[in-house]
């Protein structure tokens, strides 16, 4: 409680506080980004050397994406919230358009049987990654515009779900089950937080859940993935291969890990070590300690986002609050699902680890999201300082 008293005692520090920055969040995210670069290097070097001739193939690309992401984050930070609120729906429609373009034969770029990219010169655009952010912004705007309908009428709830459902269906056609699941879960979480009445919400969860389960049963490869994650060592050379190798990586890590660069599983045992299974490499090289620090970092980012959202709501900035909570949900869930998949808690699906995994689109979008989050924080702080010190200020320091 002394925290709350400090601004009163030290007005100069109070002014410093006005510098609109959540330093802890920024440092945490920058730390994750830097750690991600190191781990991508560790995980990809031997693969890169054999496939692409230079061990730095992925490191160079990841670094470029990182720089683009930082630029994107700064731009997002400088963009007024009003812009997002005003153009949120357009962004969302643009995203759906981009998802359609991906699916046009000849335009979309495929890797390993999944068509997720639009080739733009040296850069491959992955609309589904951006769609997660656009959905958050769109739903936040919708919740503000139709708060009454959302809370009291079924239509207010179904309307946004239909649009998001269309986006989800398009992503599912790529196919990208993981991204669809994370996006839908984020949107539903936002609707829940936005005040959707509980009954239709429960019905919707049941329907969506049933739909996802049905999807699993309809396409055999998903069924296989679902069943194989329960015991990957039953068929460790086919369906359980990737997960069993990931689990071995964790098992080898023990408490403190084998040390940076000493991992074996990344040496052509574990596929996608530098993308979807980066957490396994961290688990092997840094052990339980490293993995728990990683989890804690994502918990911190998520909690921080929710805290910013709470403060935004407290100062009456509903749109900002919804966006902040949506970003927190999204990043938290994606990290949870990714690490959960890595340790065999969840069925195997392709999802990147936010801020860390190789994959420029995912990295850039995550940076933009954090830039937006910091902007919200700054805006809220400004509003708070204009309104004068209040009890809620302790959230600043929490």
């Amino acid at each position, binding site marked *: 409680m002394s925290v709350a008293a400090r601004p009163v005692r030290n007005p100069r520090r109070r002014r410093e506080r006005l510098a609109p920055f959540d330093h802890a969040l920024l440092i945490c995210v920058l730390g994750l980004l830097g750690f991600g670069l190191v781990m991508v290097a560790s995980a990809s070097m031997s693969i890169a050397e054999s496939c692409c001739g230079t061990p730095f193939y992925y490191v160079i690309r990841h670094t470029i994406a990182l720089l683009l992401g930082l630029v994107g984050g700064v731009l997002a930070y400088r963009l007024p919230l009003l812009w997002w609120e005003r153009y949120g729906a357009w962004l969302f429609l643009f995203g759906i358009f981009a998802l359609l373009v991906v699916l046009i034969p000849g335009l979309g770029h495929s890797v390993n049987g999944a068509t997720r990219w639009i080739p733009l010169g040296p850069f491959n655009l992955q609309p589904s990654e951006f769609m997660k952010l656009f959905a958050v912004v769109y739903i936040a705007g919708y919740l503000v515009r139709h708060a009454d309908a959302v809370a009291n009428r079924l239509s207010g709830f179904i309307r946004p779900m239909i649009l998001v459902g269309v986006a989800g269906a398009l992503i599912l056609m790529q196919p990208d089950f993981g991204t669809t699941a994370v996006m839908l879960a984020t949107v539903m979480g936002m609707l829940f937080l936005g005040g959707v009445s509980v009954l239709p919400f429960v019905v919707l969860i049941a329907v969506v859940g049933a739909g996802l389960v049905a999807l699993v049963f309809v396409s055999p490869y998903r069924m296989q993935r679902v069943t194989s994650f329960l015991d990957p*060592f039953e068929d460790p050379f086919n369906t359980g291969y990737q997960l069993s*190798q990931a689990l071995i990586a964790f098992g080898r890590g*023990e408490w403190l890990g084998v040390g940076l660069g000493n991992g074996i599983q990344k040496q*052509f*045992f574990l596929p996608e070590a530098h993308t979807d299974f980066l957490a396994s490499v961290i688990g092997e090289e840094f052990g339980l300690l490293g993995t728990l620090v990683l*989890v804690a970092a994502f918990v911190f980012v*998520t909690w921080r986002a929710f805290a910013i959202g709470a403060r935004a709501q407290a100062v*009456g900035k509903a749109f900002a609050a919804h966006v902040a909570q949506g970003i927190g949900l999204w990043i938290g869930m994606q990290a949870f699902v990714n690490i959960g998949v890595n340790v065999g808690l969840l069925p195997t699906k392709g999802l990147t680890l936010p801020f860390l995994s190789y994959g420029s689109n995912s990295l850039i979008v995550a940076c933009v999201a954090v830039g937006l989050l910091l902007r919200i924080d700054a805006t809220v702080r400004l509003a708070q300082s204009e309104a004068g010190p209040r009890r809620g200020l302790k959230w600043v320091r929490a």
Partner: protein
Amino acid sequence: MANPSRRPRRPLESPQRRRPNLVLRRRLLMVGLAVAFVLLGAGVFYRQVVETDFLQTEGERRYLRVAEIPARRGMISDRNGEPLAVSTPVETVWADPRKLVERLDVLPELARDLDLDPQALRERVLAKSERGFIYLKRRIDFDEARAVRELIAREHLAGVDFESEYRRFYPGAEVFGHVIGFTDIEDRGQEGIEFAHDAQLQSEPGLRRVIRDGRKRIVQEVEQLRPPRQGTDLVLSLDRRLQFLAYRELLAAVREHEAVGGTLVALDVDTGEVLAMVNQPGYNPNALRDGGSERRRNRCVTDVIEPGSTVKPLVVAAALERGLVTPTTEIDTEPGYFRVGRNLVRDVHDYGLLDVTGVLAKSSNVGVVKIAQMMEYADLWSLYDDLGFGHVTGIGFPGESPGNLRHYSDWRVFEHATLAFGYGLSVTTLQLAQAYATLAADGIKRPLTLLKREPGAVVPGTRVLSAETARAVRTMMEQVVSEKGTARRAAIAGYRVAGKTGTAKKAGPNGYAGRRYQAVFAGFAPAERPRLVMVVMIDEPHGRSYYAGVVAAPVFQKVMEGALRLFNVPPDNPPPSMLLSGRGGSAL
């Protein structure tokens, strides 16, 4: 984490009928997320701490392997250290069929680079497509390895890799092939010295525990389980230069006289070391060994001949030893044939009255039978037996034949006669060389060896004949190489050469039928104190002549001349011109 605080509830929108409790919902969701992350932490803890042993065992099954540390088989060299069989590191190309089945399109090119049958390779890969390892081709040469490397780089081919092995290489090729033999693909000796001394030459690969990556490449060595044991080198008694000379001359003679084969063996009189041992036909142990055993036999050791007239000096030696004759004792060979029981012993011509020296010089069958008949059966047998006929020489060569010498208790009178001129018994050329080496060594029989002896060491032997007898026989044998004898062409300028020809009819399935002969010349030089013994046998010469003096003696002459020079043997019969130029060189 949520700090409980009472927050003033502010209306977000227009007046509402129902206000959802947003703070409660947020807390519920955060609790849900917190539970999820706690579960995640628990899952990580389970994998990294609780299940770690099982997972590490599973991992070790995948990446921990026991790999061999290649060890080098012992080198075989000649007496001067020239390599005759060396193991050189080469590459073996192997494949992971599980990966290769996905690239069936590159198989034809791969097969071409490795000189394999594309269809067979394809079938092999498909048949083993569940397996993780097959040898594509072992011990490939440099060009093949380079071609495959380029293919891998060009096609981004996965599942094809190299490992290091040793390959046996024989610099002596055909010249030493029969003696050295060869090893199989597992580096185990199969024939010749490689087989006989396999235990000594063999290396034992070491073992190490290694970590292999997913492409089965070794990325780290964990521990050495057993150090490699390198094979022990072996130094042979053979002299590479002499062997080459002997091979060349024998080959030339076999060609010239249209013979089916031939052998030559040269011994060091003082040590019993084999200095040269060559055969025709030959084979190249470096090449594909498809010649069959016909070409691979070391005939000096494995094949027997009837020695024919080359045993006559031995008969004379036995008689001299017992004081039954002297070199000048006269033997009547008239009329050129001699009845023994119901059979007739013939000479080529009627030589009339010959002394014992003349009997050897002219190679008179009648004369030598008459000398033999002065002795008991046992006298001749025991000399032959003492000289090693009917026994393996102990040279330790695989497949050595002991020859055949019937015990005298089974002899009949005509057999006694034929044994005196070299029929009715069989010996290897090596045995014949050993008998002659005994004569050359003043009657001392020394054990033979293919391994180099300690220089200067005295080699103990057994006395078979008195020194006087041996010298007397050698002196008589010099006449064979004289103008009067049968082997003028064996004479070497500057040296006194002693020897004996033997032209034996070859026994076939139908007895001694047809014009099939084996022409043998056995001799030594210098005659006064012989240093080298050499036996040359030309098998079935089909040219103009088949007489040993014409067919075998010139080979002896050329090779022995070279050998005397190679071993720096001083001339014991320098011609006057040599003496003149030697002494008066500066005066002229």
